[in-house]
């Protein structure tokens, strides 16, 4: 089960990227920086919800042999090394192909506590939701600025662990400015959700983290983290800096 303190910073890492060792060290750095868990992308050939940075990381990870099998093993080792639980992010076909039941069981065995599938909207999630519950995995639903009010409430009721609030219309990736109506959207989500709300997509600066966590429980930082990881920068310091 996912448990999140106030002002959580959740780092997103692509499994096995930019190399297996670097990935494992980044998970450990996240623990040292005080992150409560890490999100890990299991690379898929056609990541339609991702922008250029995560696309590139996914493609390179796949080319270096990071299969689903390998990703699960890397998650297990990252969980062991960091002492943090993991939330997996991947696309519907990889979960469907392995079998919803088996995927969830294997993820749980690797130390996974949650699962995010951005191309599996609520209407298609019944079966995976049931399988994930049986495995003790929280299936996290996503809401976006285009989600109508009633649907936002429904997502907040159905989501497990936390509600992943997508900050923008668009794909993942760092952005200078967040949606101008974001505060209002977060307020609505927080008011109607049964679980904590975390905001992701486009978050990269301490100012954005401050703005968002005035209301939301936490933020998810992906592309901005991967860009620093790629350049060999100190990710622990970056993650620490976000909560200053």
């Amino acid at each position: 089960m996912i448990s999140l303190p106030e002002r959580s910073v959740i780092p997103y890492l692509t499994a096995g990227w930019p190399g297996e060792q670097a990935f494992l060290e980044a998970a450990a750095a996240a623990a040292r920086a005080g992150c409560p868990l890490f999100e890990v992308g299991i690379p898929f050939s056609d990541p339609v919800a991702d922008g250029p940075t995560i696309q590139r990381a996914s493609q390179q990870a796949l080319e270096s042999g990071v299969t689903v099998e390998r990703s699960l093993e890397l998650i297990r080792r990252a969980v062991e090394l960091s002492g943090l639980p993991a939330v997996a992010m991947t696309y519907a076909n990889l979960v469907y192909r392995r079998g919803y039941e088996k995927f969830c069981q294997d993820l749980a065995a690797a130390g996974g506590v949650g699962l995010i599938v951005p191309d599996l909207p609520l209407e298609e999630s019944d079966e995976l939701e049931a399988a994930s519950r049986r495995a003790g995995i929280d299936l996290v639903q996503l809401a976006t600025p285009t989600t109508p009010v009633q649907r936002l409430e429904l997502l907040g009721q159905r989501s497990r662990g936390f509600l992943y609030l997508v900050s923008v219309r668009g794909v993942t990736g760092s952005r200078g400015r967040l949606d101008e109506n974001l505060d209002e959207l977060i307020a609505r989500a927080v008011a109607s959700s049964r679980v904590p709300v975390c905001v992701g997509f486009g978050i990269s600066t301490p100012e954005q983290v401050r703005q968002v966590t005035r209301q939301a429980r936490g933020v998810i930082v992906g592309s901005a983290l991967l860009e620093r990881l790629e350049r060999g920068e100190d990710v622990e310091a970056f993650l620490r800096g976000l909560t200053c």
Partner: protein
Amino acid sequence: MQLPVGPVRSQLADSRGRFGAYGGRFVPETLITALQELEAGYARACADESFWSELSAHLSLFAGRPTPLYPAERLTAHWGGARVWLKREDLNHTGSHKLNNCLGQALLARRMGKRRIVAETGAGQHGVATATVCARFGLDCVIYMGAEDVRRQALNVYRMELLGARVVSVESGSRTLKDATNEAMRDWVATVDDTHYILGSVVGPHPFPTLVRDFQAVIGREASTQLGRSPAVVVACVGGGSNAAGMFAHFVDQSGVRLVGVEAGGFGTGPGQHAASLSSGEPGILHGALTYLLQDAQGQVQATHSVSAGLDYPGVGPQHSFWKDSRRVEYVAVSDREALDAFVLLCRLEGIVPALESAHALAWCQREASSMSPDQDLLVCLSGRGDKDVAEVRRLLGDGQ
């Protein structure tokens, strides 16, 4: 002249957009509202006769419909079996059946107040058809095309630009149609308020497989009336499967009519050597739908190959997956070589240069027509013209042939 347009009335998707187990709506949350609005907008259009009469007028005056049903006498004599009829979708404006769908979706987008259009294209047929309707209706147009295809189809890129479209070269993944589709979806996720995505085939999330099939159903209805009797066999090529769906939809309830969908067999049956999703794939989820998919053991989408860019796609329309499992339609694959032979044969015997896609349907006839009897009608969808393929065919066959 009122053309036989309008929604298909049988074998419909259920309320979740499923044809049996296949189809659905596997897309990011951001698109859900837009797809619901599109579904509702299309339902309103379906109930509005003025929508269909407007579409009929554009199909007639702008696209040049009805397209002829052509008796291919020399081909019939050459094969010495079935009477061969060609449904001449190649004679549509812009040179393929793609315009049928683009006109329908552009009218729908206009009704829904969308001023900007995005689309994917492989070889460029759908991109050109989309750019054409956008010019005709004064809509902003962005076409995503794999970098590899941009290089191979430079003339079509310029054609789209002449028509006022912006063509974006896609550098990700395999840099072909699949990746262009990913990028068009990413654009739509970011611009959904004012933008409509004109998907080019019967693929993608619900309601696209339904509305594209409906806009293409004019092909089969016209052909049926023109022939005036039931054909023995109806044949069409299948990439995503839009010309085939448009052709088959009218005949699918006539149990005496044999329906054959012809996929791209490429140069072998190994991974990356073909694009025969129904013949060799397994159910999976890509571009918003559960459908037969070419993928590896772990679910990564596989590279594909076909001599015909329009068939070079790892997925297929979900209704085709349903028709395969229910055995209503037979799906077979023919090789690049067979398609090239059929391409040349049609040029020589009938004076028609077919698209390499359509040549796949003809290649199946080359195999089977002679075993049919002369009182049987073999109806073939000639989905497009082959001008775009002449340079590629020349390269493959060598100048001497």
